[in-house]
Each structure stands twice: as structure tokens, then as C-alpha cells.
């Protein structure tokens, strides 16, 4: 580490999201990408036929978390747009799936990451996209 002092507000690196609080956000997204992928893989491998909709949704959520993690870590405008799309999808997903699982538990007996607004994961899935959007807004490319 010689002479490479990292400055989080260095204007040269303005078009990035992977600095400061963004690093924590990306780390949490990475954990969710990992656990959602593992969970979806497990569900699809062992009991897909029991609840194809819920388990497809698990797989979809896993893809959303993977895309969000990678795009947040990458610099540039295009990745910024990908991040916005992924985080918005995640927010809509957690709200819609959360509401359906709350009002119609019969139609949705199998758990996904987003069921009951992510209660099984300490509601982190509900808070994460909100923090994500706030961070993306703060680091919007000029």
C-alpha cells in the first residue's frame, strides 16, 4: 500500500457505487445473493413439483440479488442503470410477494426470501432495496 491513499469522494471515481457505505451494501447484497441462490437451488433440486410458483420465484429473487450485487460493484453509467432496475425489481418483488403471502397464505404456502416481507430474514429484504435506492440516488452519475 504505497501512495495509494483511497479517497471516497475522489471526483475521478465519482461514477462508482462501490465505495464507503456502498461497500457494506454490496456485502449484504452478496450474502443475500449467496443464500437465495443456495436456497432456490435446494428447493428446485428436491421439491420443485410441490410448489413450482414459489420455487420459481425463489430462483427469480436469487437472480435479482446476483445482478444487484454485480452491478453495484461495477463503475459506469450502464451498470448504474442495471443497479436501478435490479433494486427496483427487488422492491416491487418484496412488496408484492409480501402482500400476497400475508393476505392469501393458502395460495402461497411455501416460503421464499420475500414471503411476509422477508420476515424469515429479519426484514432485511424489505430494508435493503430502500437503502439501495437511497445510495444509488446519492451516487447518481452526473
Amino acid at each position: 500500500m504505497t501512495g495509494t491513499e483511497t479517497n471516497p469522494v475522489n471526483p475521478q471515481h465519482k461514477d462508482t457505487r462501490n465505495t464507503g457505505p456502498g461497500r457494506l451494501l454490496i456485502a449484504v447484497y452478496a450474502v443475500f445473493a449467496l443464500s437465495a441462490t443456495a436456497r432456490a437451488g435446494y428447493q428446485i433440486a428436491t421439491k420443485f413439483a410441490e410448489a413450482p410458483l414459489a420455487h420459481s420465484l425463489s430462483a427469480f429473487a436469487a437472480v435479482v440479488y446476483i445482478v444487484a450485487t454485480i452491478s453495484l460493484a461495477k463503475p459506469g453509467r450502464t451498470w448504474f442503470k442495471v443497479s436501478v432496475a435490479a433494486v427496483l425489481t427487488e422492491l416491487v418483488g418484496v412488496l408484492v410477494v409480501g402482500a400476497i403471502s400475508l393476505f392469501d397464505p393458502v395460495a402461497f404456502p411455501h416460503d421464499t426470501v420475500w414471503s411476509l416481507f422477508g420476515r424469515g430474514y429479519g426484514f432485511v429484504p424489505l430494508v435493503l432495496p430502500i437503502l439501495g435506492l437511497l445510495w444509488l440516488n446519492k451516487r447518481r452519475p452526473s
Partner: protein
Amino acid sequence: MDGYFYAILIVGLVSTIMCLVAGLMKKAPNDPTIFSVLAVELVLLVYLVGSIVRVAMGEQIAGEAWEFWGYLATALMIPLGAVYWAILERTRWSNFVLAAVGITVLVMGARMNQIWY
């Protein structure tokens, strides 16, 4: 819950609290916080060796064996990944990344215990 779980519980919580406090004090990751996370890794390595020995001695895992090993393998990557991610940019925020390790591994340890028994 067995001894491994309680070891993860204690080491994980101490590590999380140390890293949280350091982050709140606006410190960058330093030896104490990085070593606290490496201590979590060490406990997991002991868990790995201990579990291999137990299975070799003929003990049966009650749940899905591959699920248990999957959790353990994933948990082993988390402290190392977090330390790598944290030292690439040493700001206070990286201490919050390190703080997430102990609590995440703790949740995974609880799940591993459920699978084993």
C-alpha cells in the same frame, strides 16, 4: 445446540460488537477487528475438522448431509471474503462489512446445528 454452536455464538458476537464499535468510532479496519474476523474463520475450521472426525467415527447427520456441508463450506468463505473486501478500501464502512460476518456466520451455525441433530 452443541459446543461448536456456542463457540461460534461467542466468537461471532464478540467479533460483530468489536467491528461495530470500531465502525461507530470512525476507525478503519485494524489488527483487532481483522483478527476478530479471522478468529471466526478459525472456529469454523475447527468445526470442519471436528465434523469430519465425527462422521468418520460413524456419527450420522440427522438432516441432509450435503446441506450441512454446503452451509459449512459457504460459511468458511464469508470471513475471508469480507476481510478481502474490507482491506481493499480501508474506511470505517469496511468495519461494518466485517461486523456483518459474525452475525451471518452465527445464523448459519444455528442452521447447521439444526441439520446435524
